[in-house]
């Protein structure tokens, strides 16, 4: 169950070269939203758009393909996408919202749907929730320290950031590649990530990440009825190339291993909180 409930899992990538060019992996998120927008499945999507500062995302409501393209790529720092969830139904006038987010953000979406505290009119307006895999995240100052101090490159010059094969990678516009061991980045992690028990966005309609699939491809879990509908239509419309997950390397085994590692480690942190103090402990949000 470390991978959550799902109806199918494949390796896939967008069939649109323009999307693939700036996408983190297979461009699944951007392609899905572009298709859903065009088909009227959603009338806008909350994504992590660019801001004034390099690699610092700002949640935006994209209603055009151009806005979706501008939000491609992983920003390894917090993007409070849920902060726009209610507003999307208000001054933006959306009826069918698409939203991308990390597993914790998918949890927030589902909680708002079931327990809409101060979230009037949100529950029935979530049309497509796309989750991305997430091992951990970093505050912006952490990202600055990792990239500028450890990788020795200016954030402004970075074209792509990536975590993979046990390393943190920074690619610059001018072609330089820096890699540092992930071990170095641990102290910069957001502490809240250490109690997180979800790796592959178990609560999304469709979830996707890089692990399991070859470079330029993504691993995609199709989870809900709604996700299955949209995915099926997008495939039929020729939006994606797919391969059975069994035929790609490293495949699902690695996804399962990493998910198990994350959950096991964080479960321990959670348990340790119960006896953190002398005769008293720290809060556990799961009980």
């Amino acid at each position, binding site marked *: 169950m470390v991978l959550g409930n799902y109806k199918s899992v494949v390796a896939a990538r967008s069939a649109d070269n323009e999307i693939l060019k700036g996408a983190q992996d297979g461009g699944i998120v951007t392609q899905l939203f572009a298709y859903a927008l065009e088909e009227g499945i959603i*009338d*806008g999507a909350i994504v992590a758009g660019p801001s004034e500062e390099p690699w610092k995302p700002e949640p935006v409501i994209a209603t055009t393909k151009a806005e979706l393209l501008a939000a491609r790529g992983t920003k390894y720092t917090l993007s409070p996408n849920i902060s726009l969830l209610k507003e999307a*139904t*208000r*001054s*933006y*006038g*959306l009826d069918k919202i698409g939203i991308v987010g990390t597993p914790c953000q998918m949890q927030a979406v589902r909680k708002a749907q079931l327990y809409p505290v101060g979230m*009037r*009119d949100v529950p029935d307006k979530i049309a497509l929730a796309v989750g991305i895999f997430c091992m951990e995240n970093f505050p912006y100052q952490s990202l600055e320290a990792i990239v500028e101090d450890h990788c020795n490159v200016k954030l402004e010059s970075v074209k792509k950031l990536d975590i993979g094969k046990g390393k943190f990678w920074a690619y610059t516009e001018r072609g330089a590649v820096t890699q540092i061991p992930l071990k170095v980045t641990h102290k910069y992690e957001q502490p809240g990530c250490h109690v997180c028990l979800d790796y592959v966005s178990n609560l999304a309609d469709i979830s996707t990440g890089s692990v399991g699939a070859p470079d330029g491809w993504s691993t995609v879990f199709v989870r809900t009825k709604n996700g299955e509908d949209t995915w099926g239509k997008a495939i039929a419309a020729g939006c994606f190339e797919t391969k059975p997950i069994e035929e790609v390397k490293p495949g699902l085994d690695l996804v399962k291993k990493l998910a198990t590692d994350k959950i096991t480690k964080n479960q321990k942190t959670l348990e340790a909180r119960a006896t953190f103090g002398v005769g008293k402990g720290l809060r556990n949000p799961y009980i």
Partner: protein
Amino acid sequence: MSKVVEISPTTRHEGHSKLVLKVNDEGIVERGDWLSITPVRGVEKLAVGKSMHQVPKIASRVCGICPIAHTLAATEAMEASVGCYVPEDAMLLRYILQCANRLHSHALHNILSLPDMYLPGTDTKINPFTPEEPVRSVALRIQRLREIAQTVGEIVGGEAIHPSNPRVGGMYKNITPRAQQKIYDLAKEGRILAHEQSEFMIAVFKNFQNRDWAEVAGRQVPIPDDLGYHNQGYMAAAPIYGSSSLDDNPTWFPERWTEVRPWDWYMGEEEITLEDKDYPVGGTTPAGEKAWPQMQACTGVPLYDGQPVEVGPRARMVQFKNYDLKGAMGLQIARQMEYEACAYGMIEAVDALNTSGKVVADEIPQGDGTLGWAANEAPRGCDVHLAKVKDGKVGWFSMLVPTTWNFPTCSRALTGAPWELAEVIVRAYDPCVSCATHMLVVDENKKIVAQKLLE
């Protein structure tokens, strides 16, 4: 020999109130007191010392049916005090919000009024909950009207109940072209429904006025021609929106306002001597109990030109449209006549709105303690808030809300009515007792220990 009958609590209106009625041998009211018995929450006192941005958000919580009125009146009172002029597109958004709120509120009040009324031409009272036609269609239309209004309110106001978008200086956000289109479409749909609903309700109220009797507690109670007549004046600041002390020609005048304590206005201690166990549902107050309106009333009594006045839809119609229907049904009919204007108001304002226009003033002064006031024409009438802001903090705050104005006026309008129809008169005012009960500080013995007057 007069007898005293008490209906407590009254029903099918917002809040907690009661009727203490002195009646003659025929059961006709000689002198009636309608009073709030809602606990005082003291918003005006706790506002002192808080920031000018926070107080309108607290004032909104005075009432959840007309939070728009309190939010806008309080925000604009702050703006009036500090001398802040808000951009035009912010005003248009507020105007749409105002129209949306009035539409929902009037539709909601239809539900509360209908059970007193008859299907025209029949002796069948209207039960809005019945699955049978024609009432079922009316109930569905009311629901859709309210849904439209609350959705529009949510888009421009940020939230239908306790709008988040208004702020001192304008609005936090403009809306997108998509939202603009959505409002337009909703208002167009609402316009047709509002027209149908208005016609239906007017026919129902006219029918009641023409009837000879209404059935209450199993009896046929005669309906007098002058049900709910009074000789008090009217007060209204605008047909739809309002006025403030920043206006070139304000339409409300603080110097004409005074206020007296319930002590000076209501009856003294009375013993209940008439009791009716059949009064629906649960009977009236048992004989032998005591009532003391002077001490129990939880509102002050505001006067305009030294008199209680009527505020609300009819006051607006009288002031701005030469309306002349008197009595309880005259008031009800005036309310229905406002329906369509709400939809048209939204359409016109949303047409005029520039969705890329700025909605916050460039400069928001912090205030030097000058008195500012703003009157908002709430669904139930003129809602005046007064404030003194200095260095961004509220030094003094006062709310004169519609139902507070109407309490003594409606009490006078009870005279001459069979006591069994007193609640029908009260409901014509669409009272919001929570709104009315926000002032005065009262100690545990119900003694007034603090009260403010305009310096």
